[in-house]
């Protein structure tokens, strides 16, 4: 008779993952870690191939005929078209500098989220099919066969990358791993392996002007709702205009600022600022979206959605475009728009009608960021601000990946915050500015069915936030991206519920002294303020006065 095992022996269950080559570990499709597949009618609308009903949880993904050839031809075409892609496939020496820099790796511990290995998912096919050594030595040269399993793995991991580019900051060769993900996603689109949360907004935007597919009257009605809210908080009725031909400036912001919590408070801030300055600015109900989900789809789609803003600017006859607190809109404008077309000659180099500052750096894009615009106003002492109204907030600033790493936009938002709020605290140095951690849900991953993965990806950001919340009692994290505002709101509810998420122009709206305003007993969220109603507002805040008409 066998001896009865001792408790210690029974306890010896080995949970250590098996030592397998990464190529032999299939991806897991646990609920919460993948996004719903693109709906057939949406694919049809966008003219994308292989529209059908399917789910990543299915065994059969309904691959189209000849899919392998389509993928290989797709790679070949992109290698010829994009020199960068070709280089990125060849020059990685696997030094590992990027390996531990990805927020998805840090939050999941899954080695396939090391950027070098995520790129290797595609590189291994490139090697096997497009290099001589790979053709001869196959697996010994790091190559592998293109199979349905490989495609499933691509789908899993190219949609566990938010294209935030943090890894690329550390690459000694300058490989932009985000662009490898972009190529990976483009290739997946060729055979119809895509997610609805990205495609439906892209289709809506193309058809109706914004991600949610809100029609013009509803868009206008929503903003008028915010007009009422502003009147309730400040006693001032602002008067936004819509589709007004001949306006000097067209204002374009993410549609989330119009519809989503807590981004609508930022929208209230913009509207108050425009009214206070009596700015000749108009909203468009057609170019009613700054966000560009084309960036997450293909370079062609990205171009289509970006061009729409300029087409509307031309139609209205404005001089230049002012852009709101958006993430990837700015990445497209700064990194890719110049490769799409020659620019819009009908528009002019932006000049602030208030300070006279000419924004020379925007002479190609004809578009400036609202934080640049406001920072310039403050620098030139054009705003009366009462930062005490933001005293209930102990603020930190989350650098959104796209403005930070896509356009080097670090100082302007901080300058604005420091002038509108008295309590500002930075998160640790290796988690901000160019090293900022992603919210965990950029590039169209901010959907509810992906919640578990979002919590993993956002964990490094949450961890740094928790640190400043503990050290400085930070209770508000301001940010300048609509996806951030939406997704960080969910993130903090899981990791650190005492912190709220807000926008920089929400803080501006709170602090702004407007002529004819009421006692301002509440902030824009309707929360009571400690400021004495009888207190007279201080003189204009802000640093030393800059020379008017100087260049930004």
């Amino acid at each position, binding site marked *: 008779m066998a001896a009865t095992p001792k408790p210690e022996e029974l*306890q010896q269950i080995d*949970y250590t993952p098996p030592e397998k080559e990464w190529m032999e570990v299939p991806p897991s499709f646990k609920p919460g870690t993948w996004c719903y597949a693109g709906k057939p009618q949406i694919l049809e609308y966008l003219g994308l191939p292989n529209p059908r009903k399917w789910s990543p949880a299915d065994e059969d993904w309904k691959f189209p005929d000849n899919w392998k050839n389509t993928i290989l031809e797709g790679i070949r075409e992109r290698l010829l078209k994009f020199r960068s892609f070709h280089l990125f496939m060849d020059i990685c020496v696997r030094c590992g500098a990027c390996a531990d820099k990805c927020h998805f790796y*840090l939050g999941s511990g899954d080695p396939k989220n*090391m950027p070098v290995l995520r790129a290797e998912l595609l590189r291994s096919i490139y090697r096997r099919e497009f290099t001589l050594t790979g053709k001869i030595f196959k697996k010994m040269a790091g190559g592998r066969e293109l199979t349905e399993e490989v495609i499933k793995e691509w789908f899993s991991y190219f949609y566990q990358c938010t294209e935030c580019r943090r890894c690329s900051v550390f690459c000694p060769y300058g490989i932009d791993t985000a662009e490898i993900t972009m190529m990976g996603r483009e290739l997946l689109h060729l055979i119809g392996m895509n997610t609805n949360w990205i495609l439906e907004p892209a289709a809506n935007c193309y058809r109706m002007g914004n991600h949610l597919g809100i029609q013009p009257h509803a868009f206008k009605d929503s903003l008028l709702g915010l007009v009422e809210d502003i009147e309730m908080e400040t006693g001032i009725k602002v008067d936004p205009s819509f589709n007004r031909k001949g306006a000097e400036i067209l204002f374009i912001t993410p549609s989330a600022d119009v519809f989503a919590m807590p981004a609508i408070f930022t929208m209230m801030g913009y509207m108050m600022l425009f009214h206070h300055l009596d700015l000749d600015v108009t909203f468009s109900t057609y170019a009613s979206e700054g966000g560009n989900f084309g960036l997450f789809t293909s370079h062609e789609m990205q171009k289509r959605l970006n061009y729409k803003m300029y087409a509307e600017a031309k139609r209205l006859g404005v001089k230049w475009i002012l852009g709101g607190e958006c993430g990837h809109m700015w990445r497209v404008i700064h990194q890719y728009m110049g490769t799409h077309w020659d620019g819009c000659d009908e528009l002019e180099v932006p000049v602030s009608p208030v300070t006279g500052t000419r924004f020379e750096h925007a002479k190609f894009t004809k578009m400036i960021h609202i934080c640049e615009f406001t920072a310039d106003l403050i620098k030139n002492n054009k705003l009366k601000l009462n930062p005490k109204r933001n005293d209930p907030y102990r603020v930190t600033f989350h650098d959104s990946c796209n403005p930070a790493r896509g356009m080097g936009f670090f100082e302007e938002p901080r300058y604005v915050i420091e002038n509108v709020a008295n309590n500002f605290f930075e998160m640790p140095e290796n988690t901000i500015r160019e090293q900022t951690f992603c919210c965990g849900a950029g590039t169209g991953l901010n959907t*509810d069915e992906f919640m578990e993965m979002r919590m993993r990806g956002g964990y490094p950001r949450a961890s740094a936030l928790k640190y400043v919340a503990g050290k400085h009692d930070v209770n508000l994290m301001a940010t300048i991206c609509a996806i951030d505002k939406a997704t960080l709101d969910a993130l903090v509810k*899981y990791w650190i519920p005492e912190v709220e998420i807000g926008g920089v122009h929400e803080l501006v709206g709170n602090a702004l002294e407007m002529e004819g305003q009421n006692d301002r007993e509440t902030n824009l969220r309707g929360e009571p303020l400690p400021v004495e109603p009888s207190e007279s507002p201080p003189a204009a805040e802000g640093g030393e006065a800059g020379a008017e008409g100087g260049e930004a």
Partner: protein
Amino acid sequence: MEITGILKERKKDVLDRWFQEVADTYPGETPRFLRNKADRFANPLGHAVRQGLEGLLNGLLSGAGDDELAPHLDEIVRIRAVQEFSPSEAVRFVFQLKGIVREEHGGRSGEALADELSEMETRIDRLALLAFDNYMSCRERLFEIRVKELKDTISVQARNTWRPAAGEAGSETFQKRNDRRGKDEAR
């Protein structure tokens, strides 16, 4: 309790082993990374696990109550509840301490030791039950957030559909009730 004294003396070894066993539940290169990367913001997972385990060990050795143990437990469980683990894998680290305690008690034997070990194991079992509660509350939270996100999307749209025009009957009440200014229910 003598065993507590021995474990206190060997705390660093116990902690290192416990940490290593938790780190080893991650695949590939990850255990090495979790162990070696010192900067807490460059290695938030490794830092949280180490901090959490240390807090738990100190608590167990000093006879801390549930309230004192809970935050340390949460540091680890909250992470593992959203990672690629089954529920049992997510909370197993608590039981792993039993094996370590048995091996690290200093080679003594006898009835007194058996009683002490039994008492320590009862404490660890108690901790395991707390871990189960903690895990479930994290998962429930996750789904609450998901539902709230969906409801928010709908309510912002509904708010526009049902808004009475300014001055119309009910407009003031509507505005006051408007959930825009309400504190989050899920908070």
